[in-house]
């Protein structure tokens, strides 16, 4: 009996579990998945909570609803991986051995990495929306807020879902307009990047959206600390930006377990082959999703494309062959732009987001880098797809590798 062990039952881990439970012969393979939490969060939905579009109930379901039959599920924290011994120590003192390991332990925010960020104003005037607690606290705050300076700050890259901060300010513009108080709210987008987004063409188009929506932009801003007393953020080169409410995207890091295992970089992300998704230095360990150091976006749609590649490569490797499938860095993101519209971008390692059309059999086409109602419906539809198809590892009508069809150069 061979053993496949999956660490983490978030988006990526659950997809892999479902794909392999269906594929691998249960007489030959034992599959185990470990996660410390029993609740699955639909993380793309967190963005909508502060604006009262979704509530907490809309984004949570029990993880067990998505586990197939015939697999072993262990609810426990993970102490560490001992990759040379092919075993994993759990916090419930269990020791698991494996033949093959898939690490899918994700990434999370660490506000304590920045001086004063998790200080006395935390969840009073400083909020995150990358946790359900933060998003819900912010929804309560906004309900009674009378306006002032709203500053959104990205602490450092990389972050999960790099478009979410932009969507946040677009939705804030829409939300405060609809509440008739947009003139009382000054929205300021403060980023360490040289533009509104990571890639040049999209950055310039999305930057235009910011100015059209009267949102000010400060680039190349690297926050050093938060001055809680005077409600200001201060950069390493001492530029001060005052706020009445600070929406922070704190430093994103991989799990501490990765550090304890000695398998991570300085942000606890796992050095992983960009193309095969095998962990550098090991021939029986794969990593997928937000826990890797890949230069692709950290997002569920990306993990979904990676899942198809990992699946093929895993089957090659267990047959003693070289992994043949190559992940191309494909990301496909619906960007909510407010007022019931959205923008779609589609890109990979080599091709930046381009304008044009995105064909999708049966539903599309969607417009790329343009604001349309159709793109908004795409985003809203995605929640249903996520719960009903994606997590269960079912086929979606989207190719894992990016296609140039419809794109304008």
């Amino acid at each position, binding site marked *: 009996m061979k053993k496949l062990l999956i660490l983490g039952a978030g988006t990526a881990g659950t997809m892999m579990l479902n794909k392999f439970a269906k594929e691998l012969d249960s007489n030959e393979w034992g599959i185990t998945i470990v996660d410390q939490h029993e609740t699955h969060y639909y993380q793309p939905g967190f963005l909508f909570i502060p604006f009262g579009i979704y509530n907490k109930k809309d984004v949570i379901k029990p993880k067990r609803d998505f586990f197939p039959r015939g697999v072993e599920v262990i609810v426990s924290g993970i102490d560490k991986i001992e990759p040379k011994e092919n075993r994993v120590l759990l916090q419930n003192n269990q020791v698991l051995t494996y033949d093959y390991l898939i690490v899918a332990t994700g990434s999370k925010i660490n506000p304590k990495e920045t001086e004063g960020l998790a200080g006395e104003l935390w969840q009073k005037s400083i909020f995150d929306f990358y946790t359900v607690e933060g998003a819900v606290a912010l929804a309560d705050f906004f309900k009674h807020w009378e306006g002032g300076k709203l500053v959104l700050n990205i602490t450092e*890259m990389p972050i999960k879902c790099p478009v979410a901060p932009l969507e946040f300010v677009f939705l804030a513009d829409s939300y405060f307009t609809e509440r008739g108080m947009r003139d009382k709210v000054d929205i300021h987008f403060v980023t360490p990047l040289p533009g509104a987004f*990571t890639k040049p063409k999209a950055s310039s188009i999305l930057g235009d959206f910011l100015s059209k929506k009267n949102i000010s932009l400060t680039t*190349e801003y690297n926050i050093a600390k938060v001055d809680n007393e005077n409600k200001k953020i201060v950069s*390493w080169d001492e530029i001060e930006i005052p706020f009445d409410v600070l929406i922070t995207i704190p430093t994103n890091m991989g799990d501490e377990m990765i550090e304890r295992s000695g398998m991570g970089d*300085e942000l606890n992300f796992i050095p992983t082959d960009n193309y095969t998704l095998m962990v550098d230095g090991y021939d029986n360990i794969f990593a997928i999703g937000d826990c890797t150091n890949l230069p692709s976006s950290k997002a569920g749609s990306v993990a979904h494309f990676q899942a198809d590649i990992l699946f093929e490569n895993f089957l090659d490797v267990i047959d003693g062959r070289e992994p043949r499938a190559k992940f191309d860095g494909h990301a496909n993101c619906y960007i909510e732009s407010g007022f019931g519209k959205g923008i779609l971008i589609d890109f990979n390692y080599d091709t930046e987001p381009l304008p044009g059309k995105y064909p999708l059999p049966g539903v599309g086409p969607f417009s790329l880098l343009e604001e349309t109602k159709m793109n908004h419906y795409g985003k809203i539809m995605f929640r249903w797809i996520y719960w009903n198809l994606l997590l269960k590892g079912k086929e979606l009508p989207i190719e894992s590798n990016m296609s140039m069809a419809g794109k304008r150069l």
Partner: protein
Amino acid sequence: MSTIEIGGKTLELDADGNLANISDWNEEIARELAKSEGIEELNESHWQVINYMRKVFVEDGGAPSIRKLTKESGVNTKELYALFPNGPAKKSAKIAGLPKPKGCI
């Protein structure tokens, strides 16, 4: 592909405007690259960072991120920003003749 003229030599640049061939680099070129980044003179601390960057590049095959820099170069974040204003990792990589660090996507 764009190029830069330093000391009578034409050097190739990559898409980010960093040296395309790290073997083209020498200390004289670093001083010129620094000037084009607005740093008139490279002091001992600048060199400590630049040499550290090149050492990591040889060992790891990539320029280190700002976090790795502060953790290991012996120069703290505050000082790094004073030495290389705006983007210490990006700027010091450029002056060290290395490609842009991977974290700066």
